[in-house]
């Protein structure tokens, strides 16, 4: 036992030395060269130590009215060098786009340009308080105006609300507008059903439910698309909306989309489009031409703002004329003198119906990054983005389909992602999960697993347009090798995977059964 472990907490397993790869060789420290173990920050405490210096604060008479904190917060004391090392080591346990292929279907893990980061850190953006007087924020408002213009032009829609915090929040904001419109028409009580394909992302039904709608599932046809017949049969005057993803999460374009929209509108419903996959069509297809009433964009997918290990994102929503009045505040207004104003309160009926969905004015930091990205690509480059994203996915499909199984056959092209199921693994003793973990050993982030729910053991692969042909070939070669190995009966390569990662397979069941959600002294 190393000294490092002598102060081990109850949470630290006793067998810290069993760490070595393949169990073959151990090290004393549990480290393996550049793979460095790291304790919890709370286990590095020395009271009184701090990584931030302050002079003695000026003495003042306490005006906290007896509410000054009595007990310590309980934070550990560390110096700056320790903190930098702690987070450096933690970061080294992560996979990232910067390091390699991250083909997580539906998540669009494309290259995040560093120019975006630099621009977002200009003091004129980063050091701007949201409640500064209007005269001091004209550049910020102008940026929001320009971003709106790019979004509206790309989507072919008449109105946009920038404020939602991410995609799911955009869904909420879009569906709120639909609800507000129904209220305005006096139909809110009647139209309680929202139709959602079975392949939809979980946020779609969750959003509809959060607004009190009933969720009705539409089945998909034998091509992974909405079954038009089934859909039409579900329409009636209690339908508020459909929430349809396009391209959908099976990676194909809903070619009946216009007919769906028409039938829905005919029936008095609204068309919410989940725009998470807009990256497949940006610059080539405008949702405004497809009959969409509301759609969110994930700036952190299509427009390259970083995912950051789980956010922050940004989910602007575009609206059709039918819904534009129900967009939330704030909005931007161009004044007669050329200056811009931030409208934080809307007058009239629409304002009654709908207010604010987020504090302040939205994810400004993400707006700067997204506009930087848009301008860098331009109209021509964004079109190329869609084309290359689709080309890369179809290329992988072509390379892999010999060994992998396409749940809906190979009739037409996919869009930006390709969906396989696990039937090619039948009888091998290897599951989709096992297969994913073996990919980790090969140096790849696994694809999206078990989503969408409509196929068994789904593997959804989205390479994005920022991967080279060489990288795709290496990936395809490795995946074909794995598929052959599984079929050849080398199940151990999968069930024992990952072997080389910072941790072997983690026990999710134990985590959920008796949740330990925080460190305890």
């Amino acid at each position: 036992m190393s000294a490092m472990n002598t102060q081990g907490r109850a949470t630290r397993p006793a067998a810290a030395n069993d760490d070595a790869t393949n169990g073959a060789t151990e090290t004393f420290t549990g480290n393996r060269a550049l793979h460095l173990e790291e304790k919890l920050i709370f286990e590095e405490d020395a009271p009184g130590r701090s990584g931030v210096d302050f002079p003695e604060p000026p003495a003042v008479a306490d005006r906290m009215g007896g509410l000054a904190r009595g007990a310590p917060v309980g934070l550990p004391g560390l110096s700056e060098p320790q903190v930098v090392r702690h987070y450096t080591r933690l970061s080294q346990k992560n996979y990232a786009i910067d390091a390699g292929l991250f083909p997580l279907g539906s998540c669009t893990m494309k290259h995040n340009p560093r120019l975006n980061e630099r621009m977002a850190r200009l003091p004129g953006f980063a050091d701007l308080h949201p409640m500064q007087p209007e005269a001091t924020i004209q550049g910020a408002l102008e940026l929001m105006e320009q971003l709106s213009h790019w979004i509206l032009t790309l989507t072919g829609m008449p109105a946009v609300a920038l404020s939602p915090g991410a995609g799911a929040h955009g869904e909420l904001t879009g569906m709120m507008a639909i609800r507000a419109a129904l209220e305005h028409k006096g139909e809110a009580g009647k139209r309680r059903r929202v139709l959602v394909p079975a392949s939809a992302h979980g946020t779609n039904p969750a959003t509809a439910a959060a607004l009190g709608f009933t969720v009705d599932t539409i089945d998909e046809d034998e091509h992974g698309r909405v079954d038009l017949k089934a859909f039409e049969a579900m329409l009636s005057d209690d339908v508020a909306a459909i929430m349809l993803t396009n391209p959908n999460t099976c990676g194909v374009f809903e070619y009946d989309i216009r007919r769906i929209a028409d039938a829905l509108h005919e029936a008095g419903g609204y068309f919410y489009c989940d725009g998470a996959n807009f990256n497949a069509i940006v610059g080539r297809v405008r949702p405004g031409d497809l009959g969409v009433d509301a759609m969110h964009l994930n700036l952190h997918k299509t427009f390259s703002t970083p995912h950051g290990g789980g956010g922050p994102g940004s989910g602007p929503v575009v609206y059709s004329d039918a819904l534009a009045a129900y967009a939330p505040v704030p909005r931007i207004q161009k004044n007669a003198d050329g200056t811009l104003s931030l409208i934080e309160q809307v007058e009239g009926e629409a304002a009654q119906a709908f207010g604010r969905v987020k504090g302040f004015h939205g994810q400004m930091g993400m707006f700067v990054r997204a506009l930087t990205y848009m301008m860098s690509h331009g109209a021509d480059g964004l079109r190329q983005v869609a084309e290359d994203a689709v080309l890369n996915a179809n290329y992988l499909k072509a390379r892999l389909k010999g060994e992998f199984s396409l749940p809906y056959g190979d009739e037409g092209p996919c869009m930006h992602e390709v969906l396989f199921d696990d039937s090619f693994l039948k009888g091998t003793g290897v599951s989709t999960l096992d297969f994913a973990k073996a990919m980790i050993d090969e140096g790849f982030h696994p694809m999206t697993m078990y989503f969408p729910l409509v196929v068994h053991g789904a593997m959804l692969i989205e390479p994005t347009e920022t991967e080279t042909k060489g990288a795709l070939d290496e990936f395809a070669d490795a995946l074909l090798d794995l598929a052959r190995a599984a079929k050849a009966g080398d199940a151990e390569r999968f069930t024992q995977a990952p072997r080389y990662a910072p941790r072997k397979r983690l026990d999710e069941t134990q985590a959920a059964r008796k949740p330990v959600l925080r460190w305890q002294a």
Partner: protein
Amino acid sequence: MRYLPLTPQDREAMLATIGAASIDELFRDVPEQARLDGPVDLPHHASEMAVERHMSRLAMQNHAAGEGPCFLGAGAYRHHVPASVDYLIQRGEFLTAYTPYQPEIAQGTLQMLFEFQTQVALLTGMDVANASMYDGATACAEAVTMAARVTRRHKAVLSGNLHPHYRDVTETLCRMTDFPITETPPHVAGADVEALAAAVDESVGCVVVQYPDVFGHIADLSTLAETCHNAGALLVVVTTEAVALAGLTPPGAMGADIVAGEGQSIGNALNFGGPYLGLFATRQKLVRQMPGRVCGETVDSDGQRGYVLTLSTREQHIRREKATSNICTNSGLCALAFSIHMSLLGEAGLQRLAAWNHAMAVQTAERLAKVPGVEVLNPAFFNEFALRLSKPAAPVVDALAEQGILAGVPASRLYPGQADLANVLLVAATETVDPEDIESLARALAEELA
């Protein structure tokens, strides 16, 4: 185009492998009338230098808060963030990772979240916290819907001293879900604890009170908590300034059931209002009703300690329409910045940060109280307080901005049309304020009010 690696030759070779004659063929499922045959009407691609020039020009049209004295608060606070925070969050392994769905190669993000959750729980005085929400306002709205799930009562009572953006966001969501809301009127002279207590009855699912409130008032919430609990309601405490919780008795110690807060002021820049960091903490027993992602401890197949996302049966990707919330992407990187800043501060640093904030606010209040035409309204406060001026506050603020002084937030910006608040100015002072700043503000204010 610098971000696109495929060459024309690559594209040709790939189309050949696919067996498609052209790219257009791959888009054949798009209805013909919706296919654009050329680029949309926007500028074409631009060099890094050109984009940088454009953005710099826009940025320069703003007055950055750090260019002069800044006393703005009202839910967003200018603190000093150590250089190492921004360096570390930009490491590609953090910045360009996704939500940690594959825990074996995401232990960095996961351990960080586990530490973050612990820090938030400690700061708020609660048992557990989640891995973040979009911002304080949306966290507040989620707290109200969570309280409804827990108590099975839909009615919420909101404090009139709750930040109006938080109130609006919460009301919007509640109205959409037909949850009734009661609101006390804004009370600029002090915390409105009594009014809230008076509004509690057996139909109420939760009471939402801000601490410190939007006017900077602070009050002991223990009695209110008791009142709530006696009536079977939950007490939701909102905080818009996380640093305040370092200096004050934490909500958890006063009986809060849910704390929803804004974490921007630790580790994060002002960013014109976003991205920010929703904090969400609650009691252990309510954890399965909590919205959002949560990281938990476990072991790997060698018995080594490790971390995973857990309790995901609450979440949309598993539970779909039965989820506790529709949230998916949250504020991961802002949480990282918060967590690093907290780690740097540590107990000693955080206490001193709090002490500096209070001291500068007290000095500012004392100095401004001497300005003719200024009245400090707060019996008690932490780093923010309200003034009543002898004139409407908004034009005064505009006039001072022209001199490069960001004097505060006029209450009229938050409560438009509310005549009794027209002269009220919200002033915050953090450790970034120095004596010269205070003096400049006091002088300029005196002149403007003369």
